[in-house]
């Protein structure tokens, strides 16, 4: 569904992505793990069209979307739950959801979708008239997810949705991720919470210093081994029963 080939993205002279390749299969939950500063957010923004890659190609459903504007990428059915939520703080919860449906022309359907979101996130319904900036962190995260869903995406990118949230809310977020996936949404998830991520993911990638260093399936590798590889920097000696999909960069 999403196919990233050899992407290089730089901030000025510094290359944050040094040739990243990975694939997200349709209907599945794919997870991207990696330490702080690995380039996960940069990759998310590159896919969503917010940052323009220097090299490489990104295909979505077989169509080349490299370097296209964010609005064109949204039109192709991709939605992003950005790092740090980025809700519209001075707009109400309801208006945030409307903004999420900005590209849709079916006003009546949008209204029913908003009701659906309220059913899924009852807290948002209670607070529909409240300014989003005054919501709690967890509520803002739900709003960010709901806002992304309002565009009826075929694929949902989520950048650290559990960041800074209490364990109970983290569980809720992951429950929602699994539910969404059951409803047929393809999910590409960035997480620091390896434990939770591996519980829901069908496939995962490890990223380090702008490169994919490992890729595999959760069941086949013990969790602490993944943590070891992801965060303690031993992943370079790639081995084991999984295929490494990264290209030599």
């Amino acid at each position, binding site marked *: 569904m999403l196919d990233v080939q050899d992407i290089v993205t730089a901030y000025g002279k510094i290359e944050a992505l040094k040739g990243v390749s990975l694939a997200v299969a349709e209907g599945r939950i794919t997870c991207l793990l990696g330490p702080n500063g690995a380039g996960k957010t940069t990759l998310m923004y590159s896919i969503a069209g917010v940052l323009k890659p220097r090299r490489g190609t990104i295909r979505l459903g077989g169509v080349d979307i490299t370097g296209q504007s964010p609005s064109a990428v949204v039109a192709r059915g991709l939605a992003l739950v950005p790092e740090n939520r980025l809700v519209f703080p001075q707009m109400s919860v309801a208006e945030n959801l409307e*903004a999420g449906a*900005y590209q849709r022309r079916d006003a009546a359907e949008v209204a029913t979708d908003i009701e659906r979101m309220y059913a899924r996130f009852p807290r948002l319904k209670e607070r529909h008239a409240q300014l989003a900036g005054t919501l709690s962190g967890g509520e803002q995260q739900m709003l960010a997810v709901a806002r992304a869903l309002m*565009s009826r995406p075929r694929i949902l990118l989520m950048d650290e949705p559990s960041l800074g949230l209490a364990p109970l809310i983290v569980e809720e977020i992951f429950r929602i991720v699994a539910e969404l996936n059951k409803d047929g949404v393809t999910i590409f998830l960035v997480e620091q919470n390896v434990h939770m991520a591996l519980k829901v993911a069908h496939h995962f990638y490890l990223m380090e210093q702008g490169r994919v260093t490992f890729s595999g399936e959760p069941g086949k590798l013990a969790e602490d081994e993944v943590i070891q590889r992801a965060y303690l920097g031993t992943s370079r000696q790639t081995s084991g029963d999984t295929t490494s999909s990264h290209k030599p960069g």
Partner: protein
Amino acid sequence: MVALDLAQNTLDGLMVGSSYALLAIGFTLIFGVMRRLNLAYGPTIMAGVYLGTAAFISLGAPILVVLAIVILGASLVGLYVERLCFRPFGEGARTASMVASFALWMQIEEAAMHLLPRHMNPFPALVASAPLEIGPLMLRADHLVMLAATLLIAGAATYLLARTKLGLAIRAVIDQPRAAAIVGIDVERVMMLTFVLASAIGGIAGFLIAATDAQVTAMIGMWATTKGLVAMMLGGLGSVKGAIAGGLLLGVLEAHAQWFLGPQVRDMVAWGLLFVLLAFWPGGLMGAKALDRTMAVGRRV
């Protein structure tokens, strides 16, 4: 009869202040989406008004045609300013953007001088009827038209922002530009449309003020920039309501100051109030609640 003077001044001030309010609305919209100051806003208006005046002088265009030319001219020049001073610059180059708009200010003024070299030019008058008398108070009919037009445009702008899809997009861009892009709003297009909209509103303000004076001078560009800026700042940046309040307050204040203290002190009072407000009460008329937001926006310029 100080009470009568006060009442008459307030009335006159509200009328003139309504043109300031229009200028401030335009400024606020541009500032909101761009987070940068457009110093060429006044000259953009001047360009529109001068084109209309030229059509009036050389072709005898009727007043409604002049109005159309003013709006169209201001919108096109606004587009030119956006292309050259705002679109090419990213978040990191706000000062460059502002200085570029100053450069275009100089450019547009000189071009206008080539179009109409005289300092003062005739402009079609709005309504030529005698002033209305309400008891002891006098009310100029053209001033009433100006106030009505302001209320109409302010209402339309508020409706547009609150109820339409473009309005939602504009507010989203003002609120959180990156998120606006992420949800699929074409941010550049929204910026461009806002620019054209603000320039058109400014053009109407310029038209109204020139038509009530039945003349236009070369100072109109500078006038529009400074009055609009002061009114916007008095209103506390970033809301249509604040812009209207700021504009009306500035008008009333100037009317009193002019009557009691003379024209030079009038201008000094407006700047003095702005200075005191900024130094001691930077939230403007909208008060402390709006402060956090506007400070955060304003600081980043």
